[in-house]
C-alpha cells in the first residue's frame, strides 16, 4: 500500500484497502474515544497494512498492538466499551476469529439484551475474510453464517472502495456490535471515493443495493463475490442475457426488499457466496424469497457457493470458489424450468 503523502482530500482513486485505512483515520480524528486494537496493527500497520501509519499519527494509546490472544482482544474491547470507548478490533485472519467465539457470541452479542439496554457495546470487529489469496489453511474462511446466526450482532461487508470508506465509519458510529467483513482478495481493487463527503450522506449501513439493472435474472452476492457477479453479467450480456445484480452489503440485518422487488420483475434468482452451501446466507435468502415472491418465481432459487468441505488447500481453491462459469451455469438452469 502506498505511503500517504500529505492529507488526502477531494475525489481520489483508491484501493479498498486504502479506503479502509482512510476511513479508520477519519474515525480516529472524529472521535477521541475510537481505539484500534489487534495483532500487528501498530508499528507494522497490520499484515494487510490496513492500519498503516495510524499508530505513528495517533499514538500507542489509540492504536494498540495487542498480545496474540483473540479472546483477549474482544474481551478487553468489551470492557473498554463499558468504559465509554469505541474499540475497533482486528482479527488478523478469518480463521483466527474462532478463538474469540465465546467473547463475540456469548458476551459481546448478548450484553445489551441481558442488561435490558443498560449496557451498549459499540465494538467493531474487522475480519479479513474469504479465499482466493493462495494462502495456507485457516486464512481463507467465510465465517459470516456464525455471526449472522447470532442475535445481537450486526454483520456487514463492503465490496467497493467507496463502501469501504463509508461503511467502516458507519460501523464505528453504530451503537451495536458490528462484525465488519473485509473481502481480503479484493483489497487492491480500485474505485473513486469522495473523501470529503459527509458520512451521514452515504448510503445507510444496513441497506442492500441494486448495482446493475437487468431484466432476465437476478443475481445476488456480497463482498468478494461481487466481482464475479460483474464479470458474469458482462459475459451474459454478450450472449444477450441481461442480469440484474444486487450487492447485499448488510448480512445482519438482511435487507431483502431490493431483492424481492427485483425477483418480482425477473422471476429468477441466483445467490452467490464463498461460504459453504449448507445453512449459508443463500439458504436464508432463498427461504425468504420463496415466501415473498412465490407467484413470481419461474424457477427454483439457485445457489452458487463454496462446497461443504473444509476450505481446501490453495491449489484447489479455484475449484471451490464460485466463478463466472458456475454463476452462468446456474443462470442457465433457471431458464430450464
Amino acid at each position: 500500500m502506498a505511503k500517504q503523502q500529505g492529507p488526502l482530500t477531494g475525489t481520489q482513486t483508491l484501493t479498498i484497502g486504502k479506503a479502509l485505512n482512510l476511513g479508520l483515520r477519519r474515525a480516529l480524528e472524529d472521535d477521541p474515544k475510537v481505539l484500534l486494537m489487534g495483532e500487528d496493527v501498530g508499528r507494522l500497520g497490520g499484515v494487510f497494512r490496513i492500519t498503516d501509519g495510524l499508530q505513528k499519527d495517533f499514538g500507542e494509546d489509540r492504536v494498540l498492538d495487542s498480545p496474540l490472544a483473540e479472546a483477549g482482544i474482544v474481551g478487553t474491547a468489551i470492557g473498554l466499551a463499558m468504559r465509554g470507548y469505541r474499540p475497533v478490533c482486528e482479527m488478523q485472519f478469518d480463521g483466527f476469529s474462532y478463538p474469540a467465539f465465546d467473547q463475540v457470541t456469548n458476551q459481546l452479542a448478548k450484553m445489551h439484551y441481558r442488561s435490558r439496554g443498560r449496557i451498549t457495546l459499540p465494538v467493531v470487529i474487522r475480519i479479513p475474510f474469504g479465499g482466493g489469496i493462495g494462502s495456507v489453511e485457516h486464512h481463507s474462511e467465510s465465517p459470516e453464517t456464525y455471526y449472522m446466526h447470532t442475535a445481537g450482532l450486526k454483520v456487514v461487508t463492503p465490496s467497493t472502495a467507496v463502501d469501504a470508506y463509508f461503511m467502516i465509519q458507519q460501523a464505528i458510529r453504530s451503537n451495536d456490535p458490528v462484525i465488519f467483513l473485509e473481502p481480503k482478495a479484493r483489497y487492491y481493487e480500485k474505485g473513486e471515493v469522495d473523501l470529503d463527503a459527509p458520512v451521514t450522506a452515504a448510503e445507510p449501513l444496513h441497506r442492500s443495493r441494486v448495482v446493475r439493472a437487468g431484466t432476465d435474472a437476478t443475481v445476488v452476492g456480497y463482498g468478494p463475490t461481487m466481482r464475479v457477479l460483474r464479470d458474469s453479467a458482462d459475459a451474459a450480456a454478450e450472449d444477450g442475457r441481461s442480469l440484474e445484480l444486487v450487492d447485499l452489503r448488510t448480512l445482519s440485518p438482511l435487507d431483502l426488499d431490493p431483492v424481492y422487488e427485483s425477483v418480482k420483475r425477473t422471476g429468477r434468482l441466483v445467490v452467490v457466496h464463498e461460504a459453504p452451501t449448507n445453512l449459508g446466507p443463500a439458504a436464508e435468502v432463498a427461504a425468504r424469497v420463496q415466501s415473498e415472491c412465490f407467484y413470481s418465481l419461474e424457477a427454483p432459487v439457485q445457489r452458487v457457493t463454496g462446497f461443504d468441505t473444509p476450505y481446501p488447500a490453495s491449489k484447489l481453491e479455484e475449484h471451490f470458489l464460485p466463478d463466472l462459469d458456475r454463476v452462468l451455469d446456474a443462470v442457465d438452469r433457471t431458464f430450464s424450468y
Partner: protein
Amino acid sequence: MGDKPATKGRPATKARSGARRSRPASTPAGEAALQGSAQEPEFVQLLTPEGERVEHPDYSVDFTDEQLQGLYRDLVIVRRLDLESTALQRQGHLAIWASLEGQEAAQIGSGRALRKQDMAFPTYREHGVLWCRGVDPTAPHGLFRGNDHGDWDPAEHNANLYTLVIGAQTLHAVGYAMGINYDGKVGSDDGEASIVYFGDGASSQGDVHEACVFAGVYHAPVVFFCQNNQYAISEPVERQTRTPIYQRAAGYGFPGVRVDGNDVLACYAVARHALDAARHGQGPTLIEAYTYRMGAHTTTDDPTRYRTGSEVESWKQRDPITRMRTYLAKAGIGDDDFFASVDADADRITGRLREFVIGLPDPDPSRLFEHVYAEESPLQDAERAWFEQYQSSFVGEGAH
C-alpha cells in the same frame, strides 16, 4: 465503612518487584493457620478461627468498633439472605440458586474494600459483593427465578451483571481497567480500579490467562480476586492446578497473595491494599482467597457424591461469622443486644426478599424482543409484530 485506607501504602519498589507478598510459614499468622489443620496453607490472617486478633507485618486494619459491627452485620445478613434464597428454591419460587455460604468473609471483606468509584465484575455467586455495592438484595433473584438476566443497573452501582460463562468477565474487567488508564484516572487516592471475581475452576480457563496477560502488559489497575472455594462443582482444586493459584501471578509480572478467605479483616486488608496500589498506578494484583463452599455448587448439585462430611465439618470450625462474633464478644464490641439486633435486621430484610420473590410476576412476553439491539432491529420488529398478532388470535382463551 470509612473511605480512609485501612492499610499502609505499598512502597513503589516493592510493588514493581513482582514478588509475592504472603508470609513465610514461620509468621504468627502462618502458625495460627497451621494449628487448625496440617493441610492448611500459609496465608494472610488477622483473625484466627478461634476469634483471636493476630498481627501481620504487611497487612493491618484500623477499624472503629462501629465499623467492626458493620462488617459483622454484613456477614450475618448476606448469609441469612442466602439461606432464605436456598429455601425459596426448595419451595419452588426460584428455578435455581447459587449459594455463597462459607464465602461471606471473602465477599464482604473485598466488597467493603472497594471505593465508590471502583468497578466490580462478579461471577454468579457474589451476592455479598452486590450487597456491598448497594444493589438491592432482591436484584439477582429475577435471574435465578427465570424472569430476567439480572435486573440492576451496572453503571449506577459500579457492579456489572453476573457472568455465567466461567472466567469470561476477567477480560471485561481488564478492558475496563485499561480504559481507566486511558482516562488518566490513576495515580492518586481519587484513582479508580476494577476488581474481578472468579473461582478456582475459572483459573483453568484460557480467558483468565489472557486477562492476566493483558493486565500485566498494559499495567491495568485491576485486582483479580479468586475465591478458591476448593471445588468446581465436583472437581477439587487439585484437578485445576498443581501450584497454589496465587503463585501464578509471578508469571504475569505482578504480585500474588493468598489470604484466609474466611477472615473478613484479612480479606479487607489485602483487597484494600491491592486496590489502592492499582489506583495509584502500580498495576494489577492477584488475590487468592482460600475458603470453602459450605453448600452445594447450586441447588441442582449433590455434594455428598464427591466430598466427605468430615471435610465439611472441619471447615465449619473455620466459619467466618462465628470467629467474628467470638472476637466482638470477647473484645466487648458486641453484646447480646447487638447480636440480637443484627438478627432482627436480617429477619426483616429476609422477609422483604421472600415477599418480593413470591410476588414477582412473570415477565410480559413482549420482553422477548426488547433490547436485542440498540439501533435498528427490523428482523425482531417483524417477529414481534407476528407474535403479537398470533397471541391476539387466541381471544377468549386467556390471551395476554
